[in-house]
């Protein structure tokens, strides 16, 4: 008895999930709308027309983090409610393929949302120009999204089959995501600074990469235990 090739399984799971999203539009529109609305909330709450530096960085990344929570809650729901876990567990596929597929799904969702939210942020609230900052921003986006995706995929699996799933998902994820928030926000803060050209401290990419790697390892080791039963 040989197992199916993991790459093929991951692709199949990924396509199924994306297809489901395209048919139901459960997550993406809500995330995008939420982000733009949140910028408005910040405008009214802080009573500022534009932001720069630390404040800008914080507002952008907190908004993206909260938008990510919407996805973390929804990404396993179809599986839990429609018996998808059973069908997967009954197959000879490697269990970590499901985790990898969900991480990729979350990554894709986050990138799509950022394509909407970051320009919106630049237009609505950001004072300095975004273009020069872009290359470094991309690095922050990649490593930050990866951290959110890894933690989200693990915690989502943990929370989805409990009775308080909508509450526990965010509550458990947020403390775990604070270091990611810290990393990306501090990384991009100098980029948004109006006065200085903004030198990025090297420590933040390293910290983020390390955090992503460690929790990635933990997630892959523990995921199997969540799928039993």
């Amino acid at each position, binding site marked *: 008895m040989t197992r199916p090739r993991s790459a093929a399984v991951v692709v199949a799971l990924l396509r199924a999930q994306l297809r489901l999203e395209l048919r139901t539009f459960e997550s993406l529109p809500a995330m995008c709308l939420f982000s733009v609305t949140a910028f408005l909330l910040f405008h009214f709450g802080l009573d500022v027309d534009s932001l720069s530096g630390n404040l800008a960085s914080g507002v952008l990344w907190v908004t993206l983090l909260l938008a990510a929570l919407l996805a973390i809650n929804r990404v396993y729901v179809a599986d839990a409610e429609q018996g998808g876990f059973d069908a997967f567990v009954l197959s000879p596929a490697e269990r970590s393929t499901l985790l990898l597929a969900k991480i990729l799904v979350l990554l894709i969702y986050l990138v799509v949302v950022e394509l909407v939210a970051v320009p919106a942020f630049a237009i609505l609230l950001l004072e300095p120009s975004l273009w020069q900052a872009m290359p470094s921003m991309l690095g922050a986006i990649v490593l930050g999204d990866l951290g959110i995706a890894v933690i989200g995929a693990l915690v989502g699996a943990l929370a989805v089959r409990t009775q308080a799933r909508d509450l526990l998902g965010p509550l458990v994820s947020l*403390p775990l995501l604070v270091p990611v928030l810290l*990393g990306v926000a501090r990384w991009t803060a100098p980029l948004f600074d109006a006065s200085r050209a903004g030198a990025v401290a090297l420590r933040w990419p390293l910290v983020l990469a390390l*955090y992503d790697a*460690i929790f990635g390892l*933990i997630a892959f080791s523990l995921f199997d235990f969540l799928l039993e039963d």
Partner: protein
Amino acid sequence: MYGKGLRPLSLITAAAVALTLAAALFWAPNDAYLGFLQKIFYVHVPLAILTLCGFVAAGLMAVAHLRTRDPRWDMRSYVAIHISLIFGVAVLITGSIWARGAWGHWWVWNDPTLVSFLLVMLLYATYQPLRFAIEDPERQARYASVFAITAGAFVPINFAIVRLAPAYVHPRTLSNISGNLPGRMQVVFYLALFAVTLLWITLWRFEMTAKHVAAQLRQLQNLVGEASDEAPARRSAAPSLTHAGSVS
């Protein structure tokens, strides 16, 4: 099994705590800067160390649980987190008192230890609700172990990362202050650390014993036929050992 040695342990712990209190209050000198308030360190820092070590230990016990599937490891992990949470609340309270005395505010953001601590406590505060939200006891134990391992890994990493943030480059940290302790203060500090460690272990063993006794009682009741065949109506966040097997 767990009841053995509990009385001598409690006596030693009580003696250590009493000795520490006496030493801290009467023998250690007053800090030149903070005065009497500084003595709260002898409580605050050891409690903090034990809380964090307790959380990490609970993570290791959870690893043992997942590897052996023995519900006793889950019980140990649960109790460890429970005790550490209680200690953690004490840490936050004593830290708050110290902050108020040192800087006039009940909370300060420039101490990375306190900030990391708050974050860790917020994470572990979700442990009980998580357990409570899962009815199947075996799945509850398994999911709780996954959580305990993830959170246990988070504790040291989080502390390292929070310290890196710019605001904390020149902190007035507890560790800075306690690291440079002169002679007598150092003695009292280590004495306090020893006493609090004993306290943690004693409380842990007390709770383990209580849970074991309750489990044995339930098993005996099951045997005699007093307990009904139906599943108990109340859900519980605490692990129960009765599903570990029958007596005969």
